[in-house]
């Protein structure tokens, strides 16, 4: 006879089913990426996933820990890292980034749920600092190699900006998974429908950038559609283990992400600030949780 603590029934959702949903939500952006950048985009995604999953397997094997690759979280990290890379980045750099994400950022801190920083974001920053050139060499579809919309805005060459429709569909320069707002929003809708995430972080993150850039005299629509804002706000800032656990905390965190993104984009040396803003807010996320604990029913302070 089995004797266990109640409850004796459990919901069907599992870590695996949640991560599977995230992968499904990333499919529209993959399709858009292949359509815009061609086979090279797909190849980078495949390399990143193989090295992410492979390094998780080998690391856990070497440490004698239970193998967790079947929860798909390493695959999600691989896809997200690939989406944050330029479409023609040398493959070995992409592979190196995946290993950094899984081994240095995730596994060394204890594996899934224990990392304090988003693995894909951190690996992207490592690559950006290590290989500044290749990480900022963009391929512009149908035109010559040149700058991204954010690069053009930073350089003040507003007349060269692509039309808003191109930016919405994704036929612009940028990282391979970030350019199509339409595809990312489809993924967002799916995540909301499946209740994987709530709307708070993406809406407050993007909303903050929209409002602040508008107040600063920039075209807020371009600011929202350009760069990695949608990808970051929907898929990276909402990472469970690196964002606050309370709704109030998530709102504060998202506004913080938006504010830092705005500061870097408008006043910083880098044209793009989404990755840095998420990483910085990741670091203080546990403190935000701690300061915004839910109020228990009937709880009285003593």
């Amino acid at each position: 006879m089995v004797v266990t603590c109640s409850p004796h029934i459990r919901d069907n959702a599992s870590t695996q089913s949640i991560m599977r949903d995230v992968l499904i939500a990333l499919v529209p952006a993959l399709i858009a990426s292949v359509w815009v950048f061609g086979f090279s985009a797909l190849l980078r995604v495949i390399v990143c996933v193989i090295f992410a999953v492979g390094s998780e397997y080998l690391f856990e094997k070497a440490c004698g820990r239970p193998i967790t690759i079947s929860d798909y979280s390493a695959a999600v990290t691989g896809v997200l890292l690939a989406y944050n890379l330029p479409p023609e980045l040398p493959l070995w750099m992409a592979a190196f980034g995946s290993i950094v994400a899984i081994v240095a950022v995730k596994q060394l801190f204890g594996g899934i749920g224990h990392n304090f920083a988003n693995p894909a974001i951190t690996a992207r920053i490592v690559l950006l600092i290590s290989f500044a050139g290749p990480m900022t060499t963009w391929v512009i579809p149908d035109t010559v190699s040149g700058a991204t919309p954010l690069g053009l805005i930073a350089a003040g060459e507003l007349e060269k900006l692509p039309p808003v429709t191109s930016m919405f569909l994704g036929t612009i320069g940028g990282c391979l998974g970030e350019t199509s707002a339409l595809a990312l929003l489809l993924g967002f809708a799916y995540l909301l429908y499946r209740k994987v995430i709530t709307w708070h972080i993406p809406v407050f993150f993007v909303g903050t950038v929209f409002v602040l850039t508008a107040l600063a005299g920039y075209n807020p629509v371009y600011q929202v559609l350009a760069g990695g804002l949608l990808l970051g706000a929907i898929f990276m800032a909402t990472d469970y283990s690196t964002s606050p656990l309370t709704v109030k905390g998530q709102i504060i965190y998202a506004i913080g992400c938006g504010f830092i993104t705005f500061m870097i984009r408008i006043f910083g040396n880098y044209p793009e600030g989404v990755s840095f803003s998420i990483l910085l807010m990741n670091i203080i996320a546990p403190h935000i949780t701690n300061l915004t604990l839910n109020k228990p029913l009937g709880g009285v302070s003593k």
Partner: protein
Amino acid sequence: MSIKRLSGAHVPHYKNTASCAPVRMPAPAKVTIPMGMHIGAPCTPVVKVGDLVKVGQVIGEAAGFVSVPVHASVSGKVTALTEIQVANGSFAKAVVIESDGEQAVSETVVPPVVETYEQFTAALRASGLVGLGGAGFPTTVKFSVKDPSKVEYLLINGAECEPYITSDTRTMVDDADHIVKGAMTIRKFLGVKNIAIVIEDNKPEAIEIFRKKTADIEGFTVEAMPSLYPQGGEKVLIHNVTGRDVPEGKLPLDVGCIVINCTSLAFISKYLETGMPLVEKCITVDGSAVANPQNVIAPIGTALSDIFAFCGGYKAEPKKILLGGPMMGIAVPDDSVPLLKNNNAILAFAEKEASLPATTACIKCGRCAAACPAGLMPMQIERAYKLKNVDELNRLKVMLCMECGCCSFVCPAKRELVLVNKLSKGMVRAAMPPKK
């Protein structure tokens, strides 16, 4: 004023036996009646081995204010005074009675004279009634109110939010008149103005019946609530109906509410009519290992194995047996344990339902906190428990956990959060300064 309803979990309903009118099983050959079936001091046995007893006769005297007597549920001979391990792990004295099959009723079973409030609470004590919703709190204590004018709401709990269980549903459908009459009796003695029966919307038949029966009664409302577990939790119910929150360390009475289970209320009416104390219980018998799931009326103290046998026995080898529903029920080590006053279901699961999925690492998704009706943060409590940090456990208000099971139910990593909360509460209690 609109009330923001509390969180919960969308648990499956499995109300397979909702249409099964209860069947009274014949007296078993033997019953084992524990002396502690309520919260509070266990009873003192007042029978000896060899005594002949009849149905309704007192066999255990109440031993304190928070205690009610225990009665013989079969007629026959006392064959042993023993000690058994009850579901919470503690040991309790028990009286074993061998049934003579006659079910002769004791001469002491006569309708009580109830004209004053004191006589009413005395009758409740004599009836042996404990909260039939599951908690087992002596009902007489609940109604021993110093100032009846403070009672603004009588809330009748017909939510029955646990999966599988339909015994309250049957009471509401088959015995609605006794529920209404019981409420009127309480109104007579306490003068309570607002009466509401709270029913989850997955029981439309019961809702319909009570809308009809209470339409002409002033201040008697039917609250159809969404089927969101744990709608029937006492504090949840009070919040969702009145918008009031029972403060930490206080009772429903402190916010002007008394909550009573619908079957308890029907029992009060019947007791006042007949004087037959609480000696039998309608329970839902279900689960994948049971041949004929149904609602059964069984004598208190009947071994679960006898009740399952009455329901056609096991159709698969039982691997887990529960006293109560799957969300809060207690798994018992074998089917020889007796039926208690506050049981409302016994479930037997075969292999598949008995085994739980493996636990994996917490991914900090926050679902446990989002589902917690008490607004707690189970993932934080688990961390504090691992660090043995009692101050942090107190800051996280772990003592407010009602152990409803929503957190463990929704957890995608299948963590045993309720277990950790229970252990944490024990850790906090152990660290409390001893009462002087």
